[in-house]
């Protein structure tokens, strides 16, 4: 490979043979490094795959259920053919009849006062008593609100009449590969814990394929019975939190970043501020929770009304703020100086230049950083516990001053219960949280692409 150039030989350079040996070594070292990095990447992918599989495993699978009263029996008792009519398709009137047949009148009256069953008539109360109650100083919610829907009543029937009880639930992979092992399993459970299952025979056990994450799960509020619990309240809570986090962190963070990058003079005070922002980005989230509790929940209680969506949203906003500032600063810094010079040289003010040329170029970067920060905030649990997210709540948040819960709180709570079913719905809620994050990221990518296309 070498050509005789006739140049004098410099002994500090390797001879041709030495060079070939060295070249071989270098090539091998490069190959080793490449496979090393591939291995590390595989580890990362494996870790993520295992994580996802665990969640999926718990979210889907077979369950063995016994019902206090079988839905078919209920349908038949109303005179319908259970082969044609399902419990779900019954009318609201029928369902109320079923409910009335299975609960005490006292419970029925309580439910009616919470929310009435029909617009035009009463199901449990007498009219006189109702008028009296509603005329009192503190009339219950049922006096003013609308009536329950068919779905609401169906849920009550399931909760109070059908009373499904899960004997055992099986993971996704187990369910697929398990074969006949379940029957033995159930028999074993009956045998070992007769005091828990005194009234049931093996024939009453139903095996059902169950996707714990399903539309009903997403659209129903929480419940004290895992089979009936849903995450609507938690999803809405998380959505409100994201809204306030973004509303607070993005304008404040981007504004601060613009000031620091474009306007701040280099002096001690600004250096000090910058250093502190960098440090704040690393402060553990629980400390933000302490701060949120002290400031938003306690000190500003007259404004925030205590443990409300806005207190938690602002706490999460503070938590994301340093990251938003830093990533926005980086995005702004990456804009070539020639654009600033070009703008200024035309007689533009600093702000005109920044707004028209620097920010549009920086927006994709700002978006990326912001979304990552907000995504982290969605998953935060510790600060929310401190600022008082409710563990059990079935009322949807409707505004900044509502009580709320959030997906990670719900997951944390469910996962801490010992029964297997709670683990299942905790996994399903985790999956829902992951999907929410993916959607958020998708929005970011779309926004970014739209912006980038405009620029070039």
């Amino acid at each position, binding site marked *: 490979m070498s050509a005789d150039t006739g140049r004098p030989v410099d002994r500090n350079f390797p001879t041709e043979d030495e060079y070939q040996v060295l070249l071989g070594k270098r090539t091998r070292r490069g190959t080793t490094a490449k496979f090393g990095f591939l291995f590390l990447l595989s580890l990362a992918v494996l870790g993520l795959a295992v994580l996802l599989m665990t969640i999926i495993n718990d979210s889907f699978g077979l369950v063995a259920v016994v019902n206090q009263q079988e839905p078919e029996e209920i349908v038949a008792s109303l005179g319908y053919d259970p082969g044609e009519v399902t419990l779900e398709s019954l009318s609201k009137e029928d369902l109320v009849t079923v409910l009335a047949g299975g609960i005490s009148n006292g419970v029925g009256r309580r439910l009616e006062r919470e929310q009435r069953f029909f617009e035009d008539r009463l199901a449990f109360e007498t009219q006189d008593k109702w008028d009296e109650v509603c005329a009192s100083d503190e009339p219950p919610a049922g006096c003013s609100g609308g009536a329950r829907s068919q779905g609401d009543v169906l849920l009550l029937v399931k909760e109070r009449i059908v009373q499904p009880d899960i004997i055992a639930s099986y993971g996704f992979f187990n369910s697929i590969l398990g074969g006949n092992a379940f029957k033995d399993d159930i028999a074993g459970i009956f045998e070992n814990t007769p005091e828990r299952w005194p009234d049931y025979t093996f024939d009453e056990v139903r095996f059902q394929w169950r996707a714990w994450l399903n539309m009903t799960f997403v659209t129903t509020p929480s419940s004290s019975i895992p089979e009936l619990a849903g995450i609507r309240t938690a999803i809405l809570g998380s959505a409100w939190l994201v809204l306030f986090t973004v509303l607070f962190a993005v304008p404040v963070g981007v504004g601060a970043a613009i000031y620091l990058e474009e306007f701040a*003079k*280099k002096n001690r005070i600004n250096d000090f501020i910058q250093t502190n922002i960098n440090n704040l980005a690393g402060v553990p989230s629980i400390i933000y929770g302490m701060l949120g509790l002290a400031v938003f929940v306690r000190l500003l209680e007259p404004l925030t009304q205590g443990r409300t969506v806005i207190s938690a949203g602002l706490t999460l906003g503070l938590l994301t703020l340093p990251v938003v500032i830093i990533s926005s600063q980086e995005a702004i810094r990456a804009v*070539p100086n*020639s*654009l*600033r*010079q*070009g*703008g*200024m*040289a*035309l*007689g*533009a*003010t*600093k*702000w*005109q230049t920044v707004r*028209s*040329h620097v920010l*549009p*170029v920086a927006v994709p970067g700002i978006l990326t950083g912001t979304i990552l920060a907000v995504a982290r905030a969605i998953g935060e649990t510790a600060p929310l516990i401190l600022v008082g997210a409710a563990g059990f709540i079935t009322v949807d948040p409707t505004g900044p001053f509502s009580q709320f819960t959030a997906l990670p709180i719900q997951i944390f709570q469910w996962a801490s219960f010992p029964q297997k079913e709670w683990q299942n719905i905790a996994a399903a809620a985790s999956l829902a949280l992951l999907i929410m994050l993916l959607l958020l990221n998708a929005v970011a990518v779309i926004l970014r692409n739209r912006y980038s296309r405009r*620029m*070039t």
Partner: protein
Amino acid sequence: MSDQPVTTGEDAAGAAGEIRPGMAFSGGFRGAGEGVPEELRPGVIETRGMNVYYGDFEAVSGIDLNFQYNEISALIGPSGCGKSTVLRSLNRMNDLIPSARTEGEVIYHGENIYAPGVDPVEIRRRLGMVFQKPNPFPKSIYDNIAWGVKINGFKGSRADMDDVVQRALEQAALWDEVKDKLKESGLSLSGGQQQRLCIARAVATQPDVVLMDEPCSALDPIATLRIEELMLELKKDYSIIIVTHNMQQAARVSDRTAFFNVELDNRGMRTGHLVEFSPTDLLFTNPKQTQTEDYITGRFG
């Protein structure tokens, strides 16, 4: 006087001023010196004992220059002698470099542009600049030109703006090449076209002076020739000051040439000085200084 209120960029300190900046800058001097001996004629812009520092480092020292109306003046000299530094201090673009500091006076329309109370934004609006590397905005060709006009308070209609854009592009000899794709990105043009777009952008705001820092250094000979023709065309309406490394270019287009050189001062710093500022034909045929002669004949060591 610009239509805008004095919005101060970096010089807020002096804005609440006794001086109404701009009044003195708004034309009226042009041609005032017909018949007056050249040395006494007031130039469009003049530096008096100007020193520029970057931190402690004195980049150029004692610069006295008087640029004339409707002329092309060239700044030449070896690399690092401070040509760009001088050019940037003529429209206060040096203010964008935090460590830069200018001493002495730069007189524009009878007033020192470094006096307290002068808004650098107005100075830059009257002394436009074209950079060594073309830097069109990542916007459409049309917007590249319309933006500078708009932010300076253009009051005309959409159609008026179309005219302004077209005239600027024609002046920059770019109209024929881009008239069918004004909506396309300025970045989609070739390097030479981009540079002409930047020139069009600079002249569209109707400055007094166009400062150009090696505008042709990234261009091929044909594009370079086009830009030179363009400068000769523009000089009817504008005063042009150009930094160039290309001595043929200076000889071809400029009316007057300033030669800078670096000297080691007693602290061992390389500070730039003005060696000679003469009409171009004189400087190239009959230089007064031996340094100049060495440089233009390539005997520079």
